[in-house]
């Protein structure tokens, strides 16, 4: 039997039994072993791929050490984002304050690395010791002539989602400060793709082939100067809606830029995304090029995907991801491979997301919000999942139980976006599910009997 903490009972549902809405967007329960990180983590992952900015973490060393080179967000140029900078606050800084240290650290680093902007992440204790980080940033910014902003990401001040918002606040300050001359009317910003394994490049290339230019990519392979002029684009195309909707709304409000929510995971969603953008511009040539692209790309990968499907048909999957939007796409992508989703959950979904998940899933599917290792292991075992899709923290759990695993995290090395991404996904799922090693697993003989 799965033991669910009393405080979490309304964050666990089984489709088909009861219809009360999912309780979500809560602070994690103390002692539950949530898979979430903190506010700082939310900000750090969103801003991390801004490759020509200086990212300075104001706090004791841990926060910087654990997030050094944390994402596989690729750069086509500078790689300043891959360095880990910390003010490394010590006992005496905690007593006397860290402002001076911060200011000196900032000035030295800016002089050495010539970033186009600097972001100062505040961590838990900075809020407590009362450093006026905004004032330091303002002073330094004026002195060195680049934007220097505090990212208010004290770990305890909410959840990872609040960290996304703090990151968007900073991005919103950059937007609108650049020159928009010469931007094509057929132009977009790509929001919410982080160029993991070069995904932003693949997507940008699709748009280029459609005849649409990309002003800025926020934040995959992002450049500060592009973000500053991104208000010149005609449309914001938003993926990973959890982290970037706030910025999209701000830009709509401040600059009248409409947005559309998309996903590039799975062929169905990718095609839908590209057509949605094409339709927005209502240009027959763009539409024709889009149809052509979708047709060609689909044809290129379909045969191989079908080969994998033949082997994977009927297998069962459990999904646990950060944002619920990704889960929607994964369910569809798995269906394309003939696979059924038996457990699905997210760290940061909202009520609307869970409603949609419930509508998508088959009867009996377990739906989870802000879950923990015991629940995830227990439900995926109970539902006899053959495959688990998740991040680093879920991986050893799946392997311990002799379950195949697909990495859908920040550090993966294979692109999962777009048409090629669907092929990579099918291949990865196939190589894990079909591996002969599982037959040695103690659970192998017991499967199906549960």
């Amino acid at each position, binding site marked *: 039997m799965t*033991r669910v*903490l009393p405080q979490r009972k309304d964050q666990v549902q089984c489709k088909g039994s009861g219809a009360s809405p999912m309780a979500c967007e809560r602070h*994690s*329960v*103390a*002692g*539950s*072993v*949530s*898979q*979430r*990180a*903190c*506010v*700082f*983590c939310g900000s750090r992952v969103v801003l991390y791929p801004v490759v020509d900015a200086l990212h300075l973490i104001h*706090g*004791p*060393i*841990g*926060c910087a*050490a*654990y997030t*050094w080179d944390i994402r596989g967000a690729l750069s086509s140029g500078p790689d300043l984002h*891959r360095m*880990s*900078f*910390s*003010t*490394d606050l010590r*006992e005496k*800084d*905690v007593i006397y304050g860290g402002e001076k240290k911060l200011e*000196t*650290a900032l000035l*030295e*680093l800016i002089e*050495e690395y010539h970033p186009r902007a600097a972001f100062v992440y505040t961590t*838990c*204790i900075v809020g*407590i010791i009362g450093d006026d980080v905004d004032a330091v940033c303002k002073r330094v910014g004026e002195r060195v002539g680049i934007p220097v902003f505090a990212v208010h990401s004290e*770990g*305890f*001040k*909410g959840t990872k989602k609040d960290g996304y918002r703090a990151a968007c606040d900073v991005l919103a300050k950059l937007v609108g400060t650049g020159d928009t001359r010469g931007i094509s009317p057929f132009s977009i910003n790509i929001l919410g793709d982080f160029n993991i394994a070069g995904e932003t490049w693949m997507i940008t290339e699709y748009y280029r082939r459609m005849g649409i230019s990309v002003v800025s990519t926020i934040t995959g392979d992002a450049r500060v100067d592009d973000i500053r002029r991104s208000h010149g684009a005609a449309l914001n195309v938003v993926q990973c809606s959890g982290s970037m909707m706030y910025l999209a709304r701000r830009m709509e409000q401040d600059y009248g830029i409409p947005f559309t929510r998309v996903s590039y995971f799975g062929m169905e969603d990718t095609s839908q995304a590209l057509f949605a953008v094409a339709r927005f511009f209502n240009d027959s040539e763009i539409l024709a090029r889009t149809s052509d692209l979708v047709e060609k790309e689909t044809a290129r990968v379909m045969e191989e995907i079908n080969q994998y499907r033949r082997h994977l048909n009927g297998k069962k999957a459990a999904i646990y991801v950060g944002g619920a939007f990704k889960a929607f796409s994964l369910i569809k992508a798995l269906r394309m491979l003939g696979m059924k989703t038996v457990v699905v959950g997210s760290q940061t979904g909202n009520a609307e997301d869970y409603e949609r998940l419930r509508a998508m899933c088959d009867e009996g599917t377990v739906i989870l919000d802000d879950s*923990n290792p*015991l629940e995830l*292991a*227990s439900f995926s*075992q109970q539902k006899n999942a053959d495959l688990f899709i998740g991040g*680093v*923290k879920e*991986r*050893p*759990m799946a*392997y*311990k*139980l002799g379950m195949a695993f697909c990495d859908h995290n920040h550090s993966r090395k294979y692109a999962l976006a777009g048409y090629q991404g669907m092929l990579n996904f099918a291949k990865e799922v196939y190589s894990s599910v079909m591996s002969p090693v599982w037959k040695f697993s*103690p*659970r192998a003989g017991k499967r199906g009997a549960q």
Partner: protein
Amino acid sequence: MKRNFTATRNPCKLCAPLGAAVVYQGVEGCLPILHGSQGCSTYIRRYFINHFREPVDIASSNFSESTAIFGGQSNLIQALENVLNQYEPQMIGLATTCLSETIGDNVSLILNEFRKKYAGKELPEIIYTSTPSYSGTHMDGFHAAVLSFIQHFAQEGPRLDQMLVLSNFISPEDIRYLKQVLADFGIDGFIFPDYSDTFDGETWESYRRIPEGGTTRRQLQSLGQCRHCIEFGASLDGTVSGAAYLEKSFGVERHGLNLPIGINLTDRFFEVLSVIAGRDIPSKYLKQRGRLIDGYADAHKYVFGKKAAVFGEEDFVIALTHFLFEIGVVPALCATGSSTGTLRREIEKLSNDYGHPVIVREGADFEDVASDVELIAPDFLLGNSKGYALSRKMKVPLIRVGFPIHDRIGGQRILHLGYQGTQSLFDNLVNTLIAHEQEQSCVGYTFM
């Protein structure tokens, strides 16, 4: 001219709660709780998982804004209750973080409240360590947690013919090796902390709430009655370490040793064991030693005069440096993230003995290491996988040892200690240098 930066750039150290969590993971039936933000637990879990490739559950009291204002009592009590409910641990290892320390939570008081609330009920032992992340490094957290356990459990009692090994932060494979060594000497002894199974276990038929293995409660209860305690780590000499406490309070004889890497340091370890056990070194180990010397002879030319840059935890770096000197490698740079003075003291001693100058960096980060490496142009780097960026940039091979190893499989199964560990380290080192030369060569030699 190298300039000094106020900021730490690419840290060569981790924070104290991580070290405490390693120790908690090495105790049977123990579940760790970090008293702070959710991120501390999750980041540390992720850091462990990427190295050990095992499930690691660490709970958090998960501070919110009101917790930071009104104190962590209700959150910590809730965390304890939920951990008891979900995990049914035999023990709970509690460590603070920078946040709970800065707001000044009195954890002992909170724990008393908790015990009062559940008076009459059987509660697991709760061991608490203060680990403010703004002081020291993960190794301070590690040693502090070791001391907390010892202070919590050690008690008077009849002296037992038993030995304790406080083995420092070593790999699960190292722990297994030490256990074998004790057994082969016929010594009744145990290792603390023993995460050889919890951090490197078998596959499961169904999910375990807490992985099997670890130093047992019974062993911990007998700490004060041990006759001998071997404590690895030069940095612990003269400090209030676990072994020093046991010696002072319970008369347990302390044997402070370096981590046994290389022939010289391993010899000292085996000599101590031989005296304690009152018997000769088992022939198995004499043969291992003999083979190692034979290996040194076979390959001495490939390593002689080569320059190395070594980085990592100070006690580990010190032991590795002993080994490098004894095979004729010049450890031109020795760096660590901590600043206790031990590394400088020990390495300067060695440097004088061998008559080779060594650059010693305490409180170093990887950019400090990088600028020294540019200057000294070493033939290889020796340390954890965080040195890979530097290795790639400088086109100098990295030999991966210690923690973390995030870019290879099997970091938990690297054996560093004893003649056997030294043998594999030596072979790896030699082969890395040969491979590097082979790849650079315009002739594809198929022999050495």
